[in-house]
């Protein structure tokens, strides 16, 4: 018994994995339709955007900050890129994603300037930049939604790519979106950065304590700019991917999404005090959140309960993390 407890303490991801397994089994018992390939594939597909954005938030939370500006950055990158693609008539995937990522990167660097040079709490900085960017997009760029008939076709084709498809019991086809692979590649890159490069170790060190990290010899400015720049770039990329996956570019989209994403990241075991958290935990946390919120209908629960459920998940996960970290300190 104590062996299990020790394993949980050493690998917090096991705890999240256990929560995910219990959730999935429970939902599957209540309604066996859950196990249909089409449902499982759509859940995986639904976790792509939340998950990629969760990786951006993870970077910021590892350093002891919090970011609420990323939905605005994602939407800004998506809307500006799609507008540019239509206006300038370019319809290729790579330049489009490069542009969206670049816009996100620039916006992220603005956050970094405020956090590093002006020494302001990340929450308040990102609240300001997020509101300003969304105000700029809606007030200056435009409020009209770009629908499927105007969306660049190659973008939609790219997002429609399927890895493989299976035939279900009733004869219909269910395919797994290739975007899951995009998500996996990004997650792998972030994992390698965090675990196997000095830059990544610097992010953990900064979260452990800024003064300590400085004395060990980490470049705090470089690390801060890396964190917020990379978080912004990931958000920009995810924004365009989101637009491509839902075949619309809506500048009012993703309002309030920050709460779901933050919920996923804290569910994955990241601590807002910084220095604790992992890519695997975040992926599992994102999956768990998506499974729970998307299964309310299958479970026969009214969807108006969704916010209550997400809120309770945040509270439970943060309370558990706080309890875990207190044990560590004691």
């Amino acid at each position: 018994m104590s062996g299990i407890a020790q394993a949980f303490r050493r690998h917090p991801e096991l705890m999240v994995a256990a929560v995910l397994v219990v959730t999935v089994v429970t939902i599957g018992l209540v309604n066996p339709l859950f196990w249909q390939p089409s449902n499982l594939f759509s859940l995986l597909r639904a976790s792509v955007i939340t998950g990629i954005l969760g990786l951006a938030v993870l970077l910021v939370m590892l350093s002891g900050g919090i970011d609420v500006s990323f939905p605005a950055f994602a939407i800004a990158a998506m809307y500006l890129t799609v507008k540019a693609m239509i206006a300038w008539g370019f319809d290729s995937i790579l330049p489009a994603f490069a542009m969206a990522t670049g816009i996100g990167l620039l916006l992220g660097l603005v956050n970094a300037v405020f956090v590093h040079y002006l020494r302001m709490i990340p929450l308040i900085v990102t609240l300001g930049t997020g509101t300003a960017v969304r105000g700029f997009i809606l007030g200056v760029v435009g409020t009209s939604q770009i629908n499927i008939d105007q969306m660049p076709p190659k973008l939609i084709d790219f997002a429609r790519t399927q890895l493989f498809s299976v035939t279900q019991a009733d004869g219909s086809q269910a395919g797994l979106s290739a975007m899951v692979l995009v998500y996996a590649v990004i997650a792998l890159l972030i994992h390698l950065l965090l675990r196997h490069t000095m830059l990544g170790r610097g992010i953990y060190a900064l979260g452990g304590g800024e003064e300590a990290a400085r004395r060990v010899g980490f470049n705090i400015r470089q690390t801060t700019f890396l964190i917020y720049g990379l978080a912004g770039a990931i958000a920009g990329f995810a924004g365009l991917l989101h637009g491509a996956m839902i075949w619309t570019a809506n500048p009012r989209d993703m309002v309030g999404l920050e709460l779901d994403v933050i919920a996923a990241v804290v569910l994955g075991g990241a601590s807002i005090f910084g220095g604790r958290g992992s890519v695997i935990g975040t992926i599992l946390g994102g999956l768990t959140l998506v499974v729970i919120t998307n299964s309310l209908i299958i479970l026969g629960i009214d969807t108006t309960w969704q916010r209550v459920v997400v809120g309770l998940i945040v509270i439970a996960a943060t309370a558990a993390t706080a309890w875990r970290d207190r044990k560590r300190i004691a």
Partner: protein
Amino acid sequence: MTAIAQRLRRLDTNLLQLALLTLLIFAGMAALNPERFLRPYVFESITFVAPELGLLAIAMMVAMLTGGIDLSVIGIANLSCILAGLFFHAVGAPRGPELANLGWPLVAAGIALALGTGLLAGAVNGLLITRLRVTPILATIGTGQVFTGICLVLTGGPAVVGFPKLWGLIGNGTAFGIAVPLIVFLVVAALVWFMLARTAFGINLALIGTNARAAAFAGLRTGRTVFLSYVLTGGLASIAGILLSGRTNAAKSDYGVSYLLQAVLIAVLAGTNPAGGRASVPGIVLALAALMLLSSGLQIMRFSNFLVDLIWGGFLLLSIALAAWRNRTR
């Protein structure tokens, strides 16, 4: 003359800067559109709209005083007035003359219900933050979702329309030619000012915000004091909810969402240190006046709400930069 100069010098430089900013905005708006801005109607409408925002800003300031933040204030405000509204609809016939003419004992009961909800919600936040040691940001993000979620579950989405006349008087009425909400705001602001500046509770809060560990070693009961500060925050938020629903004669789960950023902005602009330790109620009043003049001036110039959002966000970032610059010269 020298006595006046000395007294002026003793005043907080931050307050002087704020007063100057308010004057500048007033002069600027008056110069840009004199015939439309300089009308009594403009200032009269400010006295009705500003108080609810001012109360939310004071609530935010109280949470920031100990280095925390309360992101659930909007949820608390909405939940309080939705519960009161449902109570009125239950005791009076919905929307009938009976509802509008409810007697003062029942209206007083509704006010008690709303205030009690706010205090209870604040207590939940306080317990999570002091007992379970969840960080204020995540605890109040979570509870804010839960409170808003309960609003959605209770109403199913649409607004609760129709409040008693007496209730509407709190948000719409005038007494001695002055807007009732303004009177409520000034009385509450004076009480909070007295509590923070002249009682042991307020001094303790500032000490805890300056250095929580030192305060604990000095023998202060930090847990209980911080808990009470969140109860106070919840109570203030519910008063803001009463004013909002009284003014609009309706209550809805997503009213006042943009107030969250504005409350943070006013608190920061007023010289509150988000890291804790410094807060000023007179600063809030001045910052509120400055921003209300700015926003009604922009509305008169037919700026879209999105552009106003852009300006609010930019203002928040600007005030952060100003605060950083001020601290550097000191």
